[in-house]
Each structure stands twice: as structure tokens, then as C-alpha cells.
């Protein structure tokens, strides 16, 4: 009947399932018999053809439910843990949700949903099922305010970059990520672990970083991803010394040279790469030469991903992008030619493009537009700086000025603060236009990172 064969997640799990696990801080689930087990209490059949909201309080059951539902449900909407409950109704309406998978069935008792399925571990035995359809995967964008947008994907689009890279060489990887797997960056790692024949170690937002690293070690994690903010936090924690991954990946924020160099120094035996991906644009490319930015010849058509720069922002067209925003008043996801405008502003210097910031993150300094990320990248180059955040502050004279909060690297002598501040300012004056040089630098102990792993920019 179907014009071509449909592969769901269960069909990708691979012939060899022995010795593979999906684990979090509490529970480890063996994949050996995963295709004849159920997290849904054996009620998968009832969800056939439905539009299912996956609203679970942990990643483990979410991941197990994804494996079961893909190829059976018509749609599944992944809810990241930080979804504002006030936005849930709008999201449910836009996605046409008619069934809920939850671990808190009481909460849904009087909500009018006829079909509420409770997810349980330990798993129960069930008869394996056959893939029925290509399920639409709905993911929420991680914007900071307002109702998140819903991006529609297929498993084929989500796994395009993984399939293109082919199977992992060498021993089966054990993947981990600091992301939540219900976010695009985390889901990529979850899918990568399963398609590559490996295992996956999930993060836990309530776990101390040192305990998390101990768990990564105990589980033999070889491949791990996170945002530059996640990685800076790890480098600052003093826990990195106990950890020796083989592959370290950054995505989700600009990977500047300072964080790439910091990771290379902390993990001398690891390959360190940064990837460009977003919920809407999918996986664009990976950069593995240890340098920030990307080679200019990545533009054009490369491995089926077409990229161009229009008005400074990176535009991407490929089979890995989301196919639409979902909902009644959803905007178009692509332009007329099928390109997704990423909103990420790049600048060509020599034969390389560098990310300078988000179009929506521009701060206004006396009428001039400034990307805070560009300033942070210069500040972060100082050897005593681990992390920084530039923002605008109201000024009665010019309307706005740049100020920066800076976290010093471990072991920097606080008595040298004034000297370090002067050096940072010298560095900024040498490399930035005068209005971009911070007027005030404050040394702080911590900077807020959002649940999605990105530096919080509430005033941007």
C-alpha cells in the first residue's frame, strides 16, 4: 500500500539490543527485550492514530514512551519540563491533542480528555507491535517569552544527520547529554544513541554536578553533548578532572574559542566538536577542526544541506528541517523557497563565518545595535575568565550602555580583580567598537542558565 517503507524508532533499534541501557539517576532499563515490553501499561493500541501529549515528569519514561508511540500515534508532542503550565491549553489546542500520556493521571481526571494513559516503570511484558505510520513529532521551541511555537518533524527529518554520518566505528558509544531529551538538542543525542547501537545516560535537573559526573563515569560515558553554558559550568565545578570522555560536543549556543580551548585543555584525549542545530532548522552541520565559527565553503549545498546568508542571518534548507509550525495561527516556517531563517547572525572574516548573536537578542546602545554575544566572546578570551554576560543598562546620557557580569576562572586571585578588569577592558577596546566596550564590569559568582541550558538573557 505505502509508496515506501516507513521506519519508526523500533525499526531503527538494531538487531543487537543486548548490553544496551537507557538510564537515569534512579533507574536503568535494559534494551534487550524492549520491543516486547511496555511503559504504557499495554495500552499502546488505544493510542493508535491519536494525537498524544507526552507530559511526564521524567525523561526516562518519556524516552520509553517515544520508542513505543513512534510509528503508532498520529502525532506526539514532547513537553519539556520547563513548559509554562499557563501555556499548556494553547499548545494542546494547536496540536489537536486527543490523548495524554502522564505519570500523574489524577491531574488529568477532570480535564475532558477521554483517553488518559499512565506511564509506569518497571516495564510490563507485551506483544511486539508493527509500525503503522510515520508519526509526526511535535517539539516546542525554547523562546523565552509567550506561548512556545510547535515545530512539526518526522523521524526521518530528525535522524537525517545521524543516518548521513553512518554507524559509529569502534565500540558502541555510551551517550550522555546535559540537555533534556524533550528538547531538540537532547532528542538528537537520544536518537543518536539508539541508531548507533549504543546506550544513553539521562540527565537529572535535581542532581548535583559532581554526582552527575560520578554517574557518567560509572556508566562509562564515551560521548557527551551540552551547550557552551553547560560546559562552562562543568569546567568551573572542578568535576571535569574526574571525567575522560572520548567525544565532547557543543550546540545550542555560540561555541566561542575560549570554551573550545577550555574543553580541549580539560579533556586532552577527547575530540571536541561543535554542531549547529535548532528545533526549526534541524541539524545544519558539525565543525570538528577545534575552531570557532565554520568554514565559508559550508555555504551552498553540502551533504544535502543548503545554506546561504541573507541580511546577515543564516538560512537553511534541507530534509532535516521541521516541516511546519503547527497551530491555528501558525506562521510560515520557511520562506517561499523552503529556507528556514535561523535568526542567527553571522559575519564573514577571512575564509570563515563567525556567529555574532541572535537577531532577536540585539541590545540597543545609544541607537546602535549590539550583539551581547560578540562582546562576551572577547571577554571570554581572557585567560582568567570562565564565563560572562553582556547586557544593556539604562543611561541618562546615551539611553543605554553596555555592562558585563564576569565569572573568574577557578584559582584566579580575587586580589587581581582590578588588574584583570583593566586587561579585559584593554582587550575589548582593541577588538570592539567603542560603544561595545563595557562601561562597567562586575565580577559575579554565578550567572543564570535557563532550563534549556542557555545563558539567561531576560533583558534582551
Amino acid at each position, binding site marked *: 500500500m505505502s509508496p515506501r517503507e516507513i521506519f519508526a524508532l523500533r525499526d531503527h533499534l538494531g538487531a543487537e539490543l543486548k548490553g544496551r541501557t537507557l538510564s537515569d539517576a534512579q533507574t536503568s532499563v535494559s534494551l534487550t527485550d524492549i520491543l516486547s515490553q511496555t511503559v504504557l501499561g499495554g495500552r499502546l493500541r488505544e493510542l493508535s492514530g491519536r494525537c498524544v501529549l507526552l507530559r511526564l515528569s521524567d525523561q526516562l519514561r518519556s524516552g520509553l514512551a517515544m520508542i513505543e508511540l513512534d510509528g503508532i500515534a498520529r502525532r506526539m508532542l514532547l513537553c519539556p519540563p520547563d513548559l509554562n503550565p499557563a501555556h499548556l491549553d494553547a499548545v494542546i489546542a494547536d496540536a489537536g491533542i486527543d490523548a495524554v500520556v502522564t505519570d500523574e493521571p489524577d491531574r488529568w481526571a477532570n480535564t475532558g480528555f477521554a483517553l488518559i494513559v499512565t506511564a509506569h516503570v518497571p516495564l510490563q511484558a507485551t506483544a511486539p507491535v508493527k509500525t503503522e505510520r510515520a508519526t509526526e513529532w511535535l517539539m516546542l521551541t525554547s523562546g523565552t517569552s509567550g506561548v512556545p511555537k510547535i515545530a512539526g518533524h518526522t523521524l526521518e527529518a530528525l535522524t537525517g544527520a545521524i543516518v548521513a554520518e553512518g554507524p559509529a566505528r569502534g565500540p558502541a558509544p555510551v551517550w550522555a547529554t546535559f540537555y533534556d531529551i524533550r528538547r531538540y538538542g537532547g532528542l538528537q543525542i537520544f536518537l543518536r544513541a539508539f541508531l548507533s547501537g549504543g546506550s544513553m545516560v539521562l540527565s537529572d535537573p535535581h542532581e548535583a554536578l559532581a554526582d552527575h559526573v560520578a554517574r557518567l563515569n560509572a556508566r562509562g560515558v564515551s560521548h557527551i553533548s551540552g551547550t557552551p553554558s553547560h560546559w562552562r559550568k562543568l569546567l568551573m565545578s572542578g568535576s571535569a578532572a574526574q571525567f575522560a570522555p572520548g567525544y565532547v560536543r557543543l550546540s545550542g549556543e555560540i561555541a566561542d574559542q575560549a570554551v573550545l580551548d577550555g574543553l580541549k585543555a580539560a579533556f586532552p584525549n577527547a575530540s571536541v566538536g561543535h554542531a549547529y542545530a535548532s528545533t526549526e532548522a534541524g541539524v545544519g552541520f558539525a565543525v570538528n577542526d577545534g575552531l570557532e565559527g565554520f568554514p565559508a565553503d559550508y555555504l551552498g549545498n553540502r551533504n544535502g544541506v543548503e545554506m546561504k546568508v541573507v541580511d546577515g542571518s543564516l538560512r537553511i534548507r534541507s530534509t532535516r528541517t521541521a516541516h511546519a509550525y503547527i497551530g491555528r495561527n501558525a506562521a510560515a516556517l520557511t520562506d517561499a523557497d523552503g529556507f528556514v531563517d535561523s535568526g542567527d547572525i553571522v559575519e564573514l572574516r577571512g575564509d570563515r563565518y563567525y556567529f555574532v548573536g541572535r537577531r532577536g537578542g540585539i541590545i540597543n546602545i545609544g541607537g546602535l545595535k549590539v550583539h551581547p554575544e560578540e562582546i562576551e566572546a572577547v571577554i571570554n578570551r581572557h585567560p582568567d575568565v570562565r564565563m560572562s554576560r553582556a547586557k544593556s543598562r539604562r543611561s*541618562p*546620557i546615551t539611553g543605554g550602555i553596555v555592562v558585563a557580569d564576569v565569572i573568574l576562572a577557578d584559582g584566579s586571585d580575587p586580589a587581581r580583580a582590578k588588574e584583570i578588569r583593566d586587561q579585559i577592558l584593554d582587550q575589548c577596546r582593541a577588538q570592539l567598537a567603542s560603544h561595545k566596550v563595557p562601561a562597567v564590569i562586575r565580577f559575579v559568582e554565578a550567572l543564570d542558565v535557563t532550563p534549556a541550558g542557555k545563558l539567561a538573557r531576560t533583558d534582551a
Partner: protein
Amino acid sequence: MSVRSKVIEAIQQIAKEQHVTLPALSDDLSLHETGFDSLAFAILVARLEDETGVDPFTVSEDAAFPATVGDFVRAYENVPA
């Protein structure tokens, strides 16, 4: 340190950073003659706010910017503690 010496020190620090050669800072020197541009004044006001806890030009209802160095210093001296 007196408010006056804090203000003068901040002016001198910013002049050094901005490569501005200051004339002698007498009270009747017009701010224009200091060689500071609006960005340098914006930096000065922001740093003094961090140091003294006040921004007299945003707080004051009479938000007219002072004309001379003496007026500028007095704007900080006259803020009720």
C-alpha cells in the same frame, strides 16, 4: 574618601581608558572642555552609580545635565544620604 574625590578619581580613570587628555579640573571648567564625549559621560555616571549608589540625573526631577565640573560634583554631593 569624599564624594568629590571619588568623582574626580573616576573622571581621571575614564580619561586614561579613553585616551582623553584632561585639562586641569577646576570647578568652573565646562564639561564640554573636559574632552569627554557622551559615551565617556555615560560610563562615568554608571560607575559612580555603582560606587555611590545614586544616579542624580535619573533620580532628580530637575534632570538637567550640569554644565561645569563643579555642578557635576555638586549633583553627587547634594543627594541626600
